[in-house]
């Protein structure tokens, strides 16, 4: 069934609007999947763009050891106040991880997924990782288990993964070329030796590809993560995308490199630049083909808790969960009710979208151009966040026939509290910079000062759609601009440039 909002076809050379591009993981983009796969991902926030507005996930940091070095990673992972992969506040034992998971699942019934993602490589810590999975599959059978890995130890772990009923595995594959690999991975540890450079990268790539094939042949869902590193693997990722898709990966997540000097990583210290949001979007578009691309990844911590855009880890530190009494049998009943309510709501929304609509006859109106609209949302698929409180903006591309989710732009909130709003000038400048390419911004409320600056930068602020569903609001805004004749011309260079 082909739905009107989203096209799954390959982008045309023009790289124009929604109608010509492969879409993200909006529900409709998953429509081509067989029912049994679709049912596996529809409540998984990391696999379904739709689900991530409603369902939460958590990671437990039981896996500190790693068997490779990546140039974007610093193994000094102990870090409480940054939001990026590979950092955690406290490494925990399987016992502690199980306790934490049960406590979170009881407190946040929307939590559907438990992942192990580090801060090292889960499969380089097999005893700790599999002990956690084994106990959780017994004590919390309603939680989906998933794991992400660099792939080096994957082939030897596939049997064990299958045994614990883990049906979502993410492999980070940044390259299929050992020469490029040597620029990303300085060394690996393999068969009791540290192996440097091209030789190490070659082994890693072989193991990743073998692991991918073994998993997909067993029907285990595989998502491939790739880090976009400008000048190193950016062009090459188009080939990677084709290969992993051919081998049965069902979702590709191209993420931007994070490389700040303060993080102490090789890339950070050596000044390797990060891609801009528009470069990332362009690469995701070229990779898309007819494979689903993930656009909503938040590159979260290895101990993140909550909806993808938030982190509630502070509420569940080891000393706090020690004091919590959890009756999981009761919690499971409550969780099932909450999941059922969300699922029914989503099904109703899907049915409404799929219902036949009055189609306007092809008009002789001039074609209008696509625009990017940014949204401030706390979740639930509605515009419910103040501009000043937003830590991220969701960016959609909208044209005359549909829309697609492009990704999110992270930022420091303009208004950090009562006192710091006045210091907002530089923060505001950074927010505006992060919104490159965006022409309209919808929030539940926008203050006077940022309003003026946004306008000056060519971004029209709009608070009229507070609490409305995102999809309805962006359609209304687009149609209004189109009717006013404001979208007839090609976009002009913006003051933000």
């Amino acid at each position, binding site marked *: 069934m082909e739905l009107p909002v989203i096209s799954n076809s390959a982008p045309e050379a023009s790289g124009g609007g929604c109608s010509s591009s492969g879409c993200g993981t909006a529900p409709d983009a998953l429509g081509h999947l067989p029912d049994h796969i679709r049912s596996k991902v529809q409540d998984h926030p990391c696999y379904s763009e739709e689900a991530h507005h409603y369902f939460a996930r958590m990671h437990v940091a039981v896996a*500190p050891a790693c068997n490779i070095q990546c140039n974007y990673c610093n*193994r000094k992972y102990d870090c409480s106040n940054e939001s990026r992969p590979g950092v955690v506040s406290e490494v925990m034992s399987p016992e502690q991880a199980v306790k934490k998971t049960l406590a979170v699942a009881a407190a946040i019934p929307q939590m559907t997924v438990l992942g192990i993602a580090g801060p090292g490589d889960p499969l380089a810590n097999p005893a700790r990782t599999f002990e956690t999975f084994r106990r959780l599959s017994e004590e919390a059978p309603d939680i989906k288990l998933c794991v992400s890995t660099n792939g080096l130890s994957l082939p030897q772990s596939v049997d064990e993964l299958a045994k614990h009923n883990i049906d979502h595995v993410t492999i980070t594959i940044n390259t299929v070329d050992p020469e490029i690999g040597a620029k990303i991975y300085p060394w690996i540890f393999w068969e*009791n030796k540290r192996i440097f450079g091209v030789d190490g990268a070659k082994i890693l790539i072989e193991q990743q590809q073998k692991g991918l094939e073994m998993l997909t042949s067993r029907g285990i869902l595989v998502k491939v993560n790739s880090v976009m590193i400008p000048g190193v693997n950016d062009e090459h990722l188009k080939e990677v995308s084709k290969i992993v898709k051919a081998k049965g990966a069902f979702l590709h997540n191209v993420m931007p490199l994070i490389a700040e000097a*303060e993080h102490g990583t090789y890339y950070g210290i050596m000044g390797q630049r990060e891609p801009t949001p528009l470069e990332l979007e362009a690469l995701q578009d070229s990779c898309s083909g007819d494979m689903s691309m993930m656009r909503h990844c938040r590159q979260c911590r290895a101990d993140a808790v909550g909806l993808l855009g938030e982190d509630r880890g502070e509420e569940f530190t080891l000393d706090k969960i020690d004091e919590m009494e959890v009756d999981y049998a009761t919690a499971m009943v409550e969780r099932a009710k909450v999941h059922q309510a969300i699922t029914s709501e989503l099904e109703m929304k899907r049915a409404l979208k799929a219902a036949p609509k009055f189609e306007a006859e092809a008009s002789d109106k001039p074609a209008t151009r696509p625009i990017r609209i940014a949204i401030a949302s706390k979740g639930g698929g509605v515009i419910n966040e103040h501009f000043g409180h937003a830590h991220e903006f969701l960016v959609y591309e909208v044209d005359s026939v549909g829309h697609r989710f492009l990704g999110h732009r992270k930022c420091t909130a303009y208004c950090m509290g009562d006192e710091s709003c006045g210091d907002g000038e530089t923060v505001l400048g950074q927010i505006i910079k992060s919104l490159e390419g965006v022409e309209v911004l919808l929030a539940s409320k926008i203050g006077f000062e940022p309003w003026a600056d946004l306008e000056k930068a060519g971004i029209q602020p709009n608070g009229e759609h507070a609490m409305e569903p995102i999809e309805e609001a962006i359609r209304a805004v687009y149609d209004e601009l189109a009717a006013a004749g404001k979208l007839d011309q090609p976009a002009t260079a913006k003051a933000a440039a």
Partner: protein
Amino acid sequence: MALEITEVCVGCYACEPLCPNEAISAGNPVFTIDPNKCTECLGDYDKPQCAEICPIEAAIVDEIGDPLNPLGSLTGIPLHLIEEYNTTGTVVRN
């Protein structure tokens, strides 16, 4: 003969299961090697396993205090930049 773990250890557990002599124990803040058990892997492996997998430069030293993985040997970051980072917490680019 025995190896030693220094205070830059991050406690990642990578070395612990590899030791053929079970000489390594988890500790807070850093892991320790029992000098009575450590053989530097002689007879078991070509190179000491703890130092082969350890991701932190200068975390494992020999009896005279020389690191088995000197600064820069694992990451390839030039020494002057490592020093700048270690003293200031960042690297200033011109």
